[in-house]
């Protein structure tokens, strides 16, 4: 079971709600994925369009744990205020904390991130920080009270998979007891399986499903890959070797001559 901030979940897939062609497709994709946690955001509301009111109805219908994000925030202050608005709106202390440094890379501003995490954790939020693979940043986030860490795989929406697998392994080794979730940049189910095979606790994705040709099928594919990767990790993975080791024992095979075995 995945345990985050005292709540347990059977699914290790966290799914984003952005970019689907229709609300119905979003609903179907969430169902196909089996995800029990969905991310959401806040947007300026127009009195005429009232778009948010309809979306709220959909969110209530889905009945999942909601994880609001602070997308678009460029400073700790913006992220803190956004988190406070999200807490009131969505009725949860959970916050996916994003403080963004650059519009092209959408990379975390790690300094603002640590500052915001410090204040939000102190104010009773359950912070899930979207961070880089940097170990020193992770340590500061943990010291700031974060009990979950969410390092990126590669830039948001880039579908490139794991840009720095070694660093992700290092984080797993340094934080053996902290739930670790790779968030951002995954493109295909095999990326998600790779994450789980490293012993990570979960995967958060959005674009790879929402922008797939068939989001519902892709959601299902990711769900299976995440299960597969987790099963593999728990099963004990065979160590890679440089040379071959026969799987069929040589002694007793037809035409066997001892001289051949060297």
């Amino acid at each position, binding site marked *: 079971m995945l345990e985050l901030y005292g709540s347990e979940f059977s699914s290790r897939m966290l799914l*984003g*709600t*952005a*970019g*689907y062609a229709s609300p119905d497709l*979003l609903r179907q994709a969430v169902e196909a994925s089996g995800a029990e946690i969905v*991310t*959401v*955001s*806040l*947007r*300026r*509301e*127009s*009195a*005429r369009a*009232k*778009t*948010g*009111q309809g*979306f*709220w109805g959909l*969110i209530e219908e889905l009945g999942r744990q909601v994880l*609001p*994000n602070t*997308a678009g925030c460029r400073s700790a*202050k*913006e992220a803190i*205020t956004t988190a*406070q*608005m*999200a807490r*009131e*709106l*969505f009725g949860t202390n959970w916050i996916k904390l994003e403080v963004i440094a650059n519009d092209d890379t959408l990379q975390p501003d790690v300094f603002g991130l640590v500052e915001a995490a410090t204040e939000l954790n102190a104010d009773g939020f359950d912070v899930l920080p979207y961070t880089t693979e940097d170990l020193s940043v992770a340590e500061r986030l943990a010291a700031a009270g974060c009990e979950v860490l969410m390092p990126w795989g590669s830039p*948001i*929406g880039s579908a490139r998979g794991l840009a720095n697998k070694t660093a992700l392994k290092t984080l797993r080794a340094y934080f053996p007891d902290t739930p670790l979730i790779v968030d951002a940049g995954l493109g295909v189910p095999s990326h998600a399986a790779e994450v789980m095979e490293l012993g990570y606790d979960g995967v958060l994705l*959005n*674009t790879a499903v*929402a922008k797939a040709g068939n989001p519902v099928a892709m959601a299902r594919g990711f769900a299976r890959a995440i299960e597969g990767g987790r099963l593999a990790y728990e099963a004990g993975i065979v160590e890679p070797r440089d040379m071959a080791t026969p799987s069929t024992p040589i002694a007793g095979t037809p035409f066997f001559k001892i001289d051949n075995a060297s």
Partner: protein
Amino acid sequence: MQILVNGKRLTTDANSLDDLCRALGFTDAKIATAVNGAFVAATARARTPLTEADEIEIVAPRQGG
């Protein structure tokens, strides 16, 4: 007075943030608010006065990744 609401200039004679939200059609709507970068709880809107050049954010739940 002239204020900014969601980045757009607006002229209003609303006395409080709550008055403003109602005047804009947000009565009983699922929204959250901030004034000059600081969160204002729903319960505090009625006693939050508005001043010239205030910057108001009115947000609602939306899709997000």
